[in-house]
């Protein structure tokens, strides 16, 4: 989504949000992410007001004091930015890819099932299976921090069964244009 992104041509406008909209965003995130309100208070204090940065292809980035916090595609789920995810790694469920896949991931490729079902990869066990269309943090084998954020295209159980093709669609990754952008 963010492989190519330049603020000068892709941002169409910035507006500060109505407090009612902010309230719905806050409750939306609290229900979608695995984060409790107290911790979230640190990320986004109640008093602070978010700015909505509208970008091409219906991407909305929400910033606090110019720093992107999370983003959204259409009315889809909220994704944290990678830097935020690094600080609070528990907000999203995790999947892992093996070492061989890191290189491709850092070039913006989607994550294929075999990379996650192999020995170095990680998929949640059957009792914590994720359905398709869940935002996930993509961890890498032998690494501590997440390397990217993705959206599951198949359920995790399905991935294990099919073991072929795209399993997780990469949304943003370390080193893409959105990563390079520290402030908006």
């Amino acid at each position, binding site marked *: 989504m963010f492989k190519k992104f330049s603020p000068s041509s892709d941002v169409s406008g910035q507006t500060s949000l109505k407090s009612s909209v902010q309230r719905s965003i806050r409750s939306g995130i609290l229900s979608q992410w*695995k984060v409790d309100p107290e911790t979230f208070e*640190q990320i986004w204090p109640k008093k602070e007001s978010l700015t909505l940065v509208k970008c091409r292809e219906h991407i909305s980035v929400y910033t606090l004091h110019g720093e992107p916090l999370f983003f959204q595609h259409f009315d889809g789920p909220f994704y944290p930015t990678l*830097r935020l995810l690094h*600080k609070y790694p*528990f907000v999203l469920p995790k999947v892992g890819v093996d070492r061989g896949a890191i290189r491709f991931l850092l070039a913006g490729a989607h994550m294929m099932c075999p990379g996650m079902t192999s020995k*170095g990869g990680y998929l*949640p066990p059957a009792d*914590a299976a994720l359905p398709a269309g869940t935002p996930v943090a993509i961890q890498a084998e032998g*690494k501590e921090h997440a390397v990217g954020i993705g959206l599951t295209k198949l359920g995790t159980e399905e991935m294990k069964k099919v073991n072929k093709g795209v399993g997780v669609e990469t949304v943003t990754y370390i080193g893409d244009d959105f990563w390079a952008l520290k402030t908006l």
Partner: protein
Amino acid sequence: MADTEPTSSAQIQPVEVLYCGVCTFPVEYCEFGSHLTKCKEWLHETHPDLYEKYYSEEALHAKLGTLSLEAQEKLEKDTAKKEAKAEAKAEAAQKKKMASQITIKRIERNKRKFVTAVHGLEAFDVDLKKTAKFFAQKFATGASVTKNAQGLDEIVVQGDVSGDIVEMIEDGAGPLKGIPSDNVVEVEEKKKKGGGD
């Protein structure tokens, strides 16, 4: 979601992540970046203990364990190639930067009235909007960022301030820091007869 720790009512402090000063990646991902040698140097200087952790013999061996030798070799080769490429690119960019010119144009608007257009600042990583504001404040006139006929951004300042701008660039005032003053050209443009505004 079973693998994440149970959330308590207390605030969970953010994890501090060390980002590489060279490639901005978290340090453990430097090996996949395009400046590995430089990253290594940087880490060695600033965080020697972490350097040990990531680039010591043992760490390298541990990595090898998970990947076949051939694949590892290929990876290394790729990294070296990428590095060379990135270096060449950076060099070319630097060269281009040195060659690019800043044009300060004095445009006659209405006989004794002038505007000054500054063009080419963006090549030196100058924030045009901020600079325009800076000019407006310094000269107490209007200054704006506009697109010129070629569709490129330039700063237009009201009044004839070309001489002052040249001086400011030489002094490196405000946002104009680090611009080589050799690249500045002054030109004058006279309005053709019959122009309306």
